[in-house]
């Protein structure tokens, strides 16, 4: 589904991505972890076209997308969410949902003026689908509420709901459970799993919550200082020494003891 090959990106002197390569298989849920500042969100921004890469290649469904603007990448079926909710605050939950549909007849000026019949037909279908998803994610009662009035958790649910009506094949979620209470985290995980199984969606998720990672991800990539340092199944990753090192800092080797041991062997 997605292949990232040797991607570099730097901001001034900071090498945010230092030769990252990874693959996301169709129908899987892939996690991306790493300490703060390791380049996870930068990688998302590069994949979704918000930043241009310095070098490297990105393929989506076999097509090279690394030179496309974000809206074209989205139109090809790769959607993303943002770490901080960007939902237009002065638009209702339903209006937010409507935004996500692609190929809307009424988005051109002339058709907006003259093709009401077709527009209202399409809107009716879209409304129904949006309501089904909102029911599933538990936002239906807030349908006509301004998105700006939703709580942080509900905003995350709205982002996920929007992804579902967008009908994309690959969905990048940037910290979907950050700042959310545990009940809602469980709810979100269930939803992601549900959409993977029932709707055959592929997910690529940046996440700090290891519970989420180990429960829903099929495969995990670990970034540190803009480089892949490990990949594998969640259980394996949790025991990987390099990963522990990246998260917990360098394990100090007790040099004095070693020296002492060396001295002893020398002396005898």
């Amino acid at each position: 589904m997605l292949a990232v090959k040797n991607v570099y990106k730097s901001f001034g002197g900071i090498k945010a991505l230092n030769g990252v390569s990874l693959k996301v298989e169709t129908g899987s849920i892939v996690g991306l972890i790493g300490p703060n500042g390791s380049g996870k969100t930068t990688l998302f921004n590069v994949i979704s076209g918000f930043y241009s890469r310095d070098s490297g290649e990105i393929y989506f469904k076999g097509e090279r997308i690394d030179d496309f603007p974000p809206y074209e990448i989205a139109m090809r079926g790769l959607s993303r969410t943002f770490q901080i909710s960007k939902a237009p605050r002065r638009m209702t939950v339903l209006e937010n949902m409507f935004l996500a549909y692609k190929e809307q007849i009424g988005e051109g000026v002339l058709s907006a003026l003259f093709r009401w019949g077709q527009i209202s037909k399409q809107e009716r279908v879209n409304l129904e689908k949006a309501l089904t998803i909102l029911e599933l994610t538990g936002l239906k009662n807030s349908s006509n509420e301004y998105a700006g009035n939703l709580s942080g958790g509900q905003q995350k649910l709205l982002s996920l709901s929007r992804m579902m009506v967008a009908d994309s094949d690959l969905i990048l979620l940037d910290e979907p459970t950050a700042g959310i209470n545990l009940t809602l985290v469980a709810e979100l995980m269930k939803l992601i799993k549900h959409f993977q199984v029932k709707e055959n969606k592929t997910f690529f998720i940046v996440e700090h919550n290891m519970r989420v990672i180990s429960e829903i991800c099929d495969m995990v990539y670990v970034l540190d200082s803009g480089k892949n340092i490990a990949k594998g199944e969640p259980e394996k990753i949790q025991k990987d020494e390099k990963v522990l090192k990246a998260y917990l800092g360098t394990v100090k080797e007790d040099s004095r003891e070693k020296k002492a041991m060396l001295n002893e062997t020398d002396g005898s």
Partner: protein
Amino acid sequence: MELMNFLIYLVTMMSIYGILALGLNFHYGHAGLVNFGHVAFFCVGAYASTLVTMAGAPFLVGVLAALISGALLGFLISLPTSKLSVHYWAICTLGAGEIIRLIALNEEWLTQGAFGIPGISQPLKSIVPAVIYPVFYLILVFIFLGIVYLLTELLVRSPFGRVLKAIREEDNLPLAMGKNVFRFRIKALSIGAAFAGLAGGLYAHYITYISPLDFMPIVTFLVWAMVIIGGKGNNLGSLVGAMVIVIFYNSTRFLKDYIPISADTLASLRMVVIGILMILVLLFMNQGLVREKKRVYRIPGEKPDAGS
């Protein structure tokens, strides 16, 4: 009779400014474009219609030329600026407004410079009796106002308008949803500019004399006051704003009979009055006189008046 004529003048000006305000509201209220050069489109429309009718074209062609020239200028301005962020963009439009006025002032072969162009033709002047001509022209302006109002309402309620509403707040989300934000912005600017151009044409044929002095930056700021006082994001609000501002702007005419201040001072005072009005509205009704309406969808199985 004199009062009657004055009232008709007021309502005509309200309607012309109403069209201008609908254009700016389309920019700012619906698409979030901070356009400080609105007068440029007004100016281009006025000159376009004037020149075209002077060359022999009928009124309707002139007005159409005004509309198209406004849209074209909007398109030209937005092409290089569509990727700028709000504040930079605002400065660009301010500059564009002045450039257009300076062109009108200096390209004398075309615009007769500072002298202005007098004797602009009026539609059906020879057929309609002079006594009722102001009413006739008012009705004409009303028709155009009605059309513009209808068009803006249609656009705002359509999926096109919905995308603009998202862009109004921020680019990244609509971009991630596959919307070509820049193209939407170019279209939005052109449409609002077309309305302003139309207003320019109607103004020129009403006053029958235009000069660069009619297109000072102050016009832009009057229209801004209309949109903000009326309520941004609400088309009806723009019309209410146009009414309020045109009334206040002309009120000093009568005050000079009652207040012992020189006419010049009074004329300057009207801007002070409008400024105070704006501050009051922003303090006590920060959504404007007519608030933006929330789009409420009926949800099956729920009471129809859920939410407000």
